[in-house]
């Protein structure tokens, strides 16, 4: 389970002037500040900052376990990594997994959010129910879905069997990745749904009404109003979900363990296998650090693209506004002509 939206209000930090509740530090406040900050920050340092530093330093060592004496090898691990075909294949597989899972989560999440944004009886109840897949532990998801997708006794195979397609082996070498994506979509879509839904509620109704007056149908309203208005939220959702999917360990590990034939082996799994099963702690750290770097690069590219691309969306919107203005103008001319 993971998840919260990070984009709290960045803007507020740039907030200058006006009313502020911050005070300059008095000498007598120092003990209180230390007492409040030190314990929490110590824990945070020990469990986050120090480990990330250690991970980098581990990657320069060769060690077979956590207790033995490690040997310093400088860049040997990284040289080995570059030549490691298994690593590069896993980079590709991780990318495929993350990309398909995130795209589907976005599509399904938006569709459900649009439905949950309508008015109908039991809407609040359904909103609550739709979150449940997000809060249950991954091990429950895998155990449950393995049974639901079971080749002989599974209800899914029973249903598609009615149409003549039964007997699918969902965890076979060819299907395992698909199944992992399917499960990831089911469990983590509610994040997209909820964040998108809360964004939808901020779009004013007037926009839609005026569009309707102009004769825009629901489909056009969605593309010309909803999506452009949700642009920023959407960019953030994709970023967060992408990060989390790229780093996902538990679902794949519990569902397939990286198999069959290593077809579903992703970078976190390769890290784990190196560290605990192949007794290469140093190399495991190298894989972990390198995947973090790769993730960072993808993230930067993504941010670069999204900072440029939105122009397309907004220009569409602008065109729409522009057209509308012309239309209104024509209409008023028309009315005037009629009056004359």
């Amino acid at each position, binding site marked *: *389970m993971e998840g919260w939206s*990070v*984009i709290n209000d960045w803007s507020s930090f740039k907030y200058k002037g006006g009313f502020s509740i911050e005070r300059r530090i008095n000498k007598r406040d120092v003990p209180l500040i230390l007492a*409040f900050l030190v314990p929490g920050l110590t*824990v945070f340092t020990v469990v986050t900052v120090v480990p990330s530093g250690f991970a980098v330093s581990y990657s320069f060592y060769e060690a077979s376990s956590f207790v033995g004496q490690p040997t310093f090898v400088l860049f040997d691990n990284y040289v080995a990594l570059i030549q490691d075909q298994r690593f590069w294949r896993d980079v590709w597989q991780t990318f495929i997994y993350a990309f398909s899972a995130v795209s589907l989560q976005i599509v399904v999440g938006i569709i459900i959010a649009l439905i949950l944004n309508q008015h109908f009886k039991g809407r609040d109840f359904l909103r609550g129910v739709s979150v449940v897949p997000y809060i249950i*532990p991954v091990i429950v998801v895998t155990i449950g879905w393995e049974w639901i997708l*079971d080749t002989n006794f599974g209800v899914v195979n029973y249903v598609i069997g009615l149409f003549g397609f039964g007997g699918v082996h969902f965890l076979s070498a060819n299907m395992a990745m698909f199944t992992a994506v399917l499960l990831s979509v089911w469990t983590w879509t509610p994040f997209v749904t909820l964040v998108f839904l809360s964004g939808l509620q901020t779009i004013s109704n007037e926009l839609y009404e005026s569009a309707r007056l102009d004769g825009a149908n629901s489909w056009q309203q969605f593309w010309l109003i909803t999506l452009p208005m949700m642009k920023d939220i959407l960019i953030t959702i994709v970023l967060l979900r992408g990060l989390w999917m790229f780093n996902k360990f538990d679902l794949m590990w519990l569902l397939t363990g990286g198999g069959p034939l290593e077809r579903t082996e992703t970078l976190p799994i390769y890290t784990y296998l190196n560290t605990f099963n192949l007794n290469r702690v140093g190399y495991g750290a190298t894989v972990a650090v390198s*995947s*973090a770097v790769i993730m960072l690069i993808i993230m930067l590219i993504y941010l670069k693209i999204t900072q440029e691309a939105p122009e397309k969306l907004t220009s569409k919107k602008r065109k729409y506004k522009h057209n509308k203005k012309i239309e209104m103008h024509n209409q008023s001319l028309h009315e005037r002509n009629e009056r004359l």
Partner: protein
Amino acid sequence: MKKLKLSKVALYVLAFLVLVYSFFPIYWIIISPLRGNPGFFEQSTVLWPTNFDVTYFINMWNTTNFPVYYKNSFIVAGSTTCITIIASTFIAYILTRFRFKGKNLLLNSMLVGYMLPPMLIAIPLLGIFISLGIEDTLIGLSLAHIAITLPFGVWMLNSFLKTVPFDLEESAWVDGASRVQALLLVIFPLLIPGVISVGVFSFIVSFTDYTFGLMIVSSEGNKTIPVGLAAIKESTSLQQSELMAGAAMIIVPMVILFSFVTKYFIKGLTSGAVKG
């Protein structure tokens, strides 16, 4: 008019599909092990079983360490939640009430820390815990979870505390309250919705975590539910039916508890994104 009616029907059909999509798998996990033997296999695709049998649940509860896992999970999740609430309230309070250098650095490093891959942190963390002598303990696991929950708590309460007017606090001081008293008696009550959101989030993160648990905890007596259930599954000592009973025994209390705090969870999850 007729067209309107049709879209209303379509809306309910869609809503029903969302319901099925979200809830059917959960229903299935709960109902399947209740079919008992031999219904579990023979009636595996019947929507509503003809007779109910709790044998699998009893097997699961009695032949494995499930009760121990349960207890451990509650201890870990409970302490993670308490520590997160206290520590993040304190940190957020200082961050919003005093002006000092490095504040943004602190907030942003928390954010970055939160985004780091769990694998990157978990492996060295095990090394650190070994040298501290707290590997394979519930305290260690709880501390690891705080790596995820504390940044969330600080950010959430930071934005909450900014909205609490300073006058309130000041008037409490005038009445002779100390800073700590004012925080606990005047400000904290106003923070309750935010605190509940942080609490619910922390509890769920900690309760459902598998990755950190797998690395840090190894002895049978210290396993949490996700780690324990996964180990049972791996050992293949029990049938799918018993595993499903175990899964159901996790889901049912979670869903019931969650139904009381859904509002706060949703709020916590979404409060940031909308402002952005």
